[in-house]
């Protein structure tokens, strides 16, 4: 079984919002219709977005760490938004695990948005249907594109390659390896939704130097400089390296 998903590396994300703008650009121009905006240049702009980048700060000044956190539909393996839909407009594709909304069936009751603990679904205020990330389902299977370009718009836009795309059920895939080898985790695991999208944690590479490594053990007189060459018959520390 295939489960397409994104893996987002929080260690690499710089919070540039390129994924947000390229997502909006691609999906508002798609065959499924525009993503409506209201007052885009006004005092209180609002609009439909599938993807957002948020910023969190851990710790207290001056010991703080900034975490940029891209947030889009996690395409849960057990999506709570699907069974609650009264019309069947909200569905999970069996062939690739993408959670989608059929805009022609949706009655705009917003019940699925209540049933998503992550707040990943929103109503389009003009088309009055629920919308959410489609994993760019209209481009990842587009055979007119080069294979390299058959990826979600956000993945292609990311300047730091913080976003990986692939099949998380294939243990050999780039995303599965990233999850297993770089500590990939799911959001709010407590609700049992089994999100397909994973996040890679912030990581630090530290060199650990032990104190005895700063002192030369074979220099008991603590005299720096060229050591006198011992006689060949003299015993040495390891009987090998003195020569």
């Amino acid at each position, binding site marked *: 079984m295939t489960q397409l998903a994104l893996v987002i590396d929080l260690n690499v994300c710089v919070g540039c919002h390129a994924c947000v703008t390229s997502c909006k650009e691609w999906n508002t121009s798609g065959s499924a219709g525009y993503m409506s905006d209201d007052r885009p240049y006004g005092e209180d702009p609002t609009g439909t*977005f599938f993807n957002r980048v*948020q910023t*969190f700060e851990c710790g207290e000044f001056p010991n703080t760490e900034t975490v940029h956190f891209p947030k889009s539909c996690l395409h849960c393996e057990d999506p709570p938004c699907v*069974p609650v839909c*009264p019309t069947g407009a909200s569905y999970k594709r069996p062939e690739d695990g993408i959670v989608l909304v059929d805009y022609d069936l*949706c*009655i705009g009751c917003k019940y699925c948005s209540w049933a998503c603990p992550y707040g990943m679904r*929103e109503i389009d205020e003009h088309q009055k249907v629920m919308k959410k990330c489609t994993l760019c389902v209209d481009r990842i299977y587009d055979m007119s594109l080069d294979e390299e370009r058959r990826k979600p718009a956000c993945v292609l836009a990311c300047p730091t390659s913080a976003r990986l795309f692939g099949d998380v059920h294939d243990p050999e895939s780039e995303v599965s390896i990233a999850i297993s080898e770089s500590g990939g985790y799911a959001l709010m*695991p407590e609700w049992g939704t089994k999100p397909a999208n994973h996040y890679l944690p912030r990581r630090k590479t530290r060199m650990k130097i032990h104190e005895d490594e700063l002192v030369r053990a074979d220099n008991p007189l603590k005299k720096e400089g060229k050591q006198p060459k011992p006689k060949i018959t003299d015993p040495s520390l390891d009987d090998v390296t003195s020569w």
Partner: protein
Amino acid sequence: MHPAFSVVFLTTLIGAGQGLFLALYTAQSYAAVKLLPAQDSRFYVLGSVIAVALLVGGLIASFFHLGHPERAWRSATRWRTSWLSREVIVLPAMLGAVVAYGLVHWLGWDLSIVGIKTQVPGDLTLIIGAGGTLFAFALFLCTGMIYACIKFLQEWASWLTVVNYTLFGGASGFLLATAYAAYMAPELVKFYAAWTAVITAAVFITRVASLIRNARLKPTSTLQTAIGVRHQRISQKSQGFMGGSFNTREFFHGVKPLLFKSIKWVFLVLVFPLPMLLLWAGLSLYAHGQEQGAYVFSAAFAVQYVGLLAERWFFFAQSNHPQNLYYQTVS
């Protein structure tokens, strides 16, 4: 959550309609075993008309919640998984049962039209009413479960939600039946008033229990699990946009804490003590043979209905959606 007035009116109106129908049917079943004086069909016909009006009012209110009301018929398709879909099926079924109940009373039909002779007057309406009663309780279950089945809305995810919806509807319907009986069937007033007091006392216990439960709830999701960072101090610095969005409008009630708290006390006063006081006043007026009792009962129903609107508003507003963790700071 942001309380939608369409849903507030839907749940309170159909609750009162279901309760009124249950009250009518209760009186008829008691009369069938001669525990209460029998009423003529006019009482049941007009009562059914009021119940239908309340149910239709709720149905109309529900359409204001939909983005595409013209597609509402589609919502009956997923009854296997969705409590909302089940409600969409049971509500018209309930409506149909009440219409049939009133119609058969009006036409004066009984089982002899299919050639069955019984000694019980109105036997056909008793059978239809039993079906209507089943639908009424099924509808309470569906309405309550729509909210109770979302496990991460912890304030709702409890059997108390279903019990409260059932008992609030029952209390409101029996109080309306008391006022109705004061005009149409004075000998039923005491019966209905007694049941109103019993149901109101029961729902007072269960609603206060749910308020206590909700006050003691510890949110399962935290900012730590929401973004998956294990740190004791995490604060949001930006939610990703400066303006509003669906996420900031739909899931926050947007009311000042003082007003939010006061609405709780408003409904606690308007739903429980005040209507009971008016009920008692109406009964004592009635005992002295004064006609004004009927007005007092109507006032009691109106006061309690306003209280129920506040209760339903508070029910929605109190529920804290875990997605709110992601929308704590604009920038």
